[in-house]
């Protein structure tokens, strides 16, 4: 009976594993099981229909498209910030460092109203952009994109930072002694070493962005077919008491998101031939 159980001189394995499994099952697994099972209660056809309505497809397209685009923008921006934080010494560096975590700590609703106040047609940034260039940001997909860039950026910075810090300066110096220019050293030595971390950051930023709700709904305007994100559609379905429909959209989001993350993982393995067993 104790065959699978590790024998250890340290106490508390049974207790801690028991508490963990109880906590995990009650809080995470049981509810997610409901999500996985509810969509099918009206039949497969009806579940399929509820996620293929044009309005749902438009929302999924916006959520996934904007999340992928935002994560892609976060990669160069995050690399730039991580680079500056690791390699440069400047006054206020610690403040800048703490600032990076802001989206982790700032409630999303606060971020949402703040971004809207800035980018609305009468806002600090929105007004000059509208007046001079005729751009509208809030209440268009661009607003969604900005909010998602905001929430995803720290993920890239925080995954690249430790790798960059551990990257020995000798590697670049060795490249220089072998006759590489600065740009060559960056492109051939530094970037390949950072690529896996950048990809991980991309995946995390995407995962966060695709489900994001609070910081988006204020700035998005929520026009069906145009600026309505998938999570909002779940809320709307629930308000209509269409539980199966809400669950179907939720499940579709999860499945699609895991698909993207699996692809990121696969790319990850190709980028890291040295880690392949």
């Amino acid at each position, binding site marked *: 009976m104790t065959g699978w159980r590790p024998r250890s001189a340290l106490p508390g*394995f049974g207790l801690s594993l028991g*508490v963990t499994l109880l*906590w995990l099952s009650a809080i995470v697994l049981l*509810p997610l099981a409901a999500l996985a099972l509810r969509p099918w209660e009206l039949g497969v056809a009806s579940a399929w229909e509820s996620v293929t309505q044009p309005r749902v497809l438009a929302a999924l397209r916006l959520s996934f498209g904007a999340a992928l685009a935002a994560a892609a923008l976060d990669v160069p921006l995050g690399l730039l910030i991580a680079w500056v934080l690791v390699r440069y010494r400047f006054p206020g560096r610690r403040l800048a460092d703490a*600032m990076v975590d802001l989206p982790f700590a*700032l409630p999303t609703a606060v971020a949402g*109203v*703040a971004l809207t106040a800035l980018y609305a047609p009468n806002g600090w940034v929105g007004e000059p952009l509208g007046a001079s260039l005729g751009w509208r940001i809030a209440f268009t997909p661009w607003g969604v994109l900005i909010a998602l*860039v905001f929430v995803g950026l720290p993920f890239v910075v925080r995954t690249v930072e430790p790798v960059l810090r551990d990257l020995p300066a000798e590697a670049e110096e060795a490249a220089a002694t072998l006759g590489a220019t600065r740009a060559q050293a960056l492109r051939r030595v530094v970037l390949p070493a950072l690529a896996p971390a950048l990809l991980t950051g991309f995946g995390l930023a995407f995962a966060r962005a695709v489900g994001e709700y609070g910081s988006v709904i204020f700035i998005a305007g929520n026009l069906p077919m145009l600026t309505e994100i998938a999570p909002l559609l779940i809320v709307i379905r629930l308000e209509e008491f269409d539980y199966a429909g809400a669950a179907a959209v939720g499940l579709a989001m*999860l499945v699609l998101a895991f698909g993207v993350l699996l692809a990121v993982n696969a790319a990850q393995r190709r980028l890291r031939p040295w880690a392949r067993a």
Partner: protein
Amino acid sequence: MARRLALLAALLVLAVLFLLPLVAVFAEALRRGWDVALAAIAEPDALAAISLTLLVAAIAVPVNLLGGVAAAWCIAKFDFPGKRLLVTLVELPFAVSPVISGLVWVLLFGAHGWLGPWLQAHGLRIVFALPGLVLATVFVTFPFVARTLIPLMQDQGREEEEAAATLGAGGLQTFFRVTLPNIRWALLSGVLLCNARAMGEFGAVSVVSGHVRGQTNTMPLHVEILYNEYQFAGAFAVAALLALLALVTLGAKALLERLAGRQAGAAG
């Protein structure tokens, strides 16, 4: 030259993307003066939202503290089959949309949920009431503590605990005298982040709350209601309070990291 440019560009991104919204919150909150802002916070519905938020966090954070420490202990200090799966499951809530984190509870306990009719028959309410808010918040903040502790405790290994065992220490003695002092700063930092998210969570609680003013409205939900009613001064006043909480959290986290760094640096 290139260095200057890179530094400038990075600071510009940080300023526009992060600093500007923060400034906007406080500026909007104070646009019509301190009095208006303070009045918006002192208003009964706002006070009810504040106390509800504190109550939810006061329940959710200890639950996840306990679960997180238990998970970190068995994952970091023991080897057993299925460990990697367990790590993935513990982190799962981070990969789930906050709205889905609320939705799952409605599917279980809502009026048309699996257990909804039974709950109704017994006069119990979970969704659109405090228990639902707590459950959704626990789900969303589930991984914070475990995630901060696991890498650190794996790094520290088992030797100190083994040494305590050979010296005759029991399980609780080992945990409180040897393990806990080694992880205290990380634990505190995990609790802080967990708390910040618990108080600031919007999507998940929005789904399970029902938005009953003065009853099931937390601070972030209160911001939304005021904002949608065009009471911008009030919305931004409450938002500013939440932003202040975020700033305090970030400051405390930075401080804890320096303390932990000093501890680790001294040990290395």
